[in-house]
């Protein structure tokens, strides 16, 4: 059962990812990104991280990708980028080498050191039928307990984002363009 889920989800993830990097039209790219995100969400679920799965869908698929599409439409850059043409020769082969090399190395490390992954934490409480909100509780305790400082920091982060968009979006007063 799990195997099936994994295979399907993995297919979604990779398919979406490949779509992102291969689709010439940014809109299509954004949509295939959604595919990946859903795939990830599924995997979250299969790791009993239901809350994160939900957030993944809401925030990522719901907010971020929408934002992408919104900007694409706003700027009208939805015309296709010529994928087949690569101005810098040797860029793609090298990029491929780097990408594959990276994968290879990391995978090698993971495979080589799989026995490192042993349970050391205080335990992760899974969601069960009788206690549907266990995972959320645990997350909440952690976020508002140990990681409350980080949580507060996110407010600053968002503040920056807001200020930034205001700053960037404002029309140039002194149109001193060069």
């Amino acid at each position, binding site marked *: 059962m799990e195997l099936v889920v994994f295979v399907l989800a993995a297919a979604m993830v990779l398919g979406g990812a490949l779509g992102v990097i291969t689709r010439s039209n940014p809109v299509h790219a954004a949509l295939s990104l959604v595919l990946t995100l859903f795939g990830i969400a599924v995997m979250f679920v299969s790791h009993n991280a239901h809350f994160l799965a939900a957030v993944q869908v809401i925030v990522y698929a719901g907010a971020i990708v929408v934002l992408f599409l919104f900007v694409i439409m706003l700027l009208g850059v939805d015309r296709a980028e010529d994928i087949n043409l690569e101005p*810098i020769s040797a860029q793609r082969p090298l*990029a491929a080498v*780097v990408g594959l090399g*990276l994968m290879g*190395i990391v995978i*090698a*490390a993971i495979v080589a*050191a799989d026995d490192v992954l042993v349970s050391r934490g205080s335990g992760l409480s899974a969601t069960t039928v009788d206690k549907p909100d266990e995972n959320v509780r645990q997350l909440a305790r952690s976020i508002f307990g140990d990681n409350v400082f980080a949580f507060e920091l996110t407010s600053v982060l968002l503040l920056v984002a807001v200020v930034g968009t205001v700053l960037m979006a404002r029309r140039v007063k002194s149109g001193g363009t060069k």
Partner: protein
Amino acid sequence: MLDLIWLVPALPLAGFVLIVLFGRKLGEPFAGVLATAMTAASFVVVALTYFELLSLPAEERHHVVELFSWIPVGSLSVDLALLVDPLSITMALFITGIGSLIHLYAIGYMHGDDKFPKFFMYLNLFVFSMLMLVLGENLLVTFLGWEGVGACSYFLISFWHTRDSAATAGKKAFVTNRVGDWGMMVAMFLAFSAVGTLSYEGINHAAEKGGLAAVTATGIAMMLFVGACGKSAQLPLYLWLPDAMEGPTPVSALIHAATMVTSGVFLLTRMAPVIHAAYPWAGDVIATVGAVTALFAATIAVAQTDIKKVLAYSTVSQLGFMFLAIGSGAYVAAIFHMVTHAFFKALLFLGSGSVIHGMHHEQDMRRMGALRKVMPITGFTFIIGWLAIAGVPPFAGFWSKDEILLFAFANNRALYLVGVVTALLTAYYMTRQVIMVFYGEAKWHDHSDEHGAHGDHTPHESPWTMLTPLVVLAGLSVVGGVMQLPFSKNTHWLEHWLEPVVHHAEADIHESWAYNNKWLLLGLAVVIASAGIAASVAVYAKGRFKAVEPQILADAWRYDSAVSAVVGGVGHKAFDAVASFDANIVDGAVVGVGREVRAASGLLTRMQTGLVRSYALIIGIGVVVMLAWFLVRGVL
């Protein structure tokens, strides 16, 4: 009195300083007068010292006057000290004596030269240096004088420095001398490292007591000889002397005939014990070089036409005789010949100077002749000088030359033979010169048009200031021989006088065949001389035979030109090669590094394309490489 010896060099020095300060104000002739007076004064002092020395017993005729400590460092302590002993006084006597005569002569000769004071300034400086050379108590003080006279001769040779030939000659003299100086310096180093002192007394004492290993002694002797070759114009370093004739004639007389060129002989005599302590072949080397030089120069002199060049080569040849003497262990004879040579060669030079003066700076003998009529005194004195050098008894040259030949015979017959041939040639070319200049028909009238420039072109006798020295020197050349007459032990007067200095090293020939048959040799010498004269007369006066003056002799066996060719050609190229090596290779490397860095910079900045993606790629590559390292570290 002995302690006042410092006056001897001090007086000429004072003269020099005074002329430096007030030369322009003094002007002519007072600058000359002052200089002459100073030299004369120091001659007087020397004379007084000499008599006092005479009054002392022989073994006490050695007195050191320390002026101040000059270079004291650790084990090396060199004082600026003067040594009074028979040898130094002998030298000082004829230096100051002849020196003052030549000063006097120069007053007349340099008349009208716009640098009159400067000339006497240099002259006094020279006398000072020369006196330091001979009076020095240690090698370093001698070296001080040694270099001093070198510098002065440089100044005086290129006195008329606007003439390029003069400038070049001066430079040549200095540089060639420097080669010799190198030898002398090395000799000093050796002496110091072996004996630990530079004072003659110390070194000679060590040599006499056997405190000096033969090999060391040989080293010192040979190096000193190198130095002597430089100063005293022996092969292969004689080159500069003929060119030195570019200088004013008094200079030629004083420096390049009478005094400076003999300082090599003096130095070797001074260090006689060391030469004695050296391997025997050291002496042979010296004798051989001397003999060869003597013959070599004599052959050249045969074909010269410049009145001064003849004398110059004859000087070289006579110096060769002196080294022959030294090499044969005849130190007394060497000094003897040095003195007599100083008399007659100075006389001859001054005479030639007087001729040149009278001929309005004409030096080519082919344009002279029959001058004895217009310049009787000059002619008369010159003839005396001729007889003296030709070795005609009883003139001075005869005795001294014969003394040398005697020792040479005892020492090495081959060299004796060379000496004899040289003597023959000497008589021959001197006779030739006398005939060309003073006899025959006058060849100067038909050149009047060319000499019109000089205004009155007919030759004239020189002023008294120039003639007095001639006369005096002529007198000395006649009687000079009395210093050392071979007749009996008591007439070996110079020998007794110099005994405290050289007795240890002087070769003893009393048992030799030569000594027992010296009258025979004397007679032979006379025959040789007359033969030479006769031949010359036959050729040049009577015209019986055609003169043999091959070009190669006139060109001094092309030795000079060959050397200049090497120096100017290969040497110059080599030096240029070094210079360009420095500019291109050594500095090129430095510049190259800079260029490489710049190139690398350009290369790297080309990676800075400004394209985000390629930046990402560079980062990515970095990541992969680094992670590879970590993976290796981790897995292995």
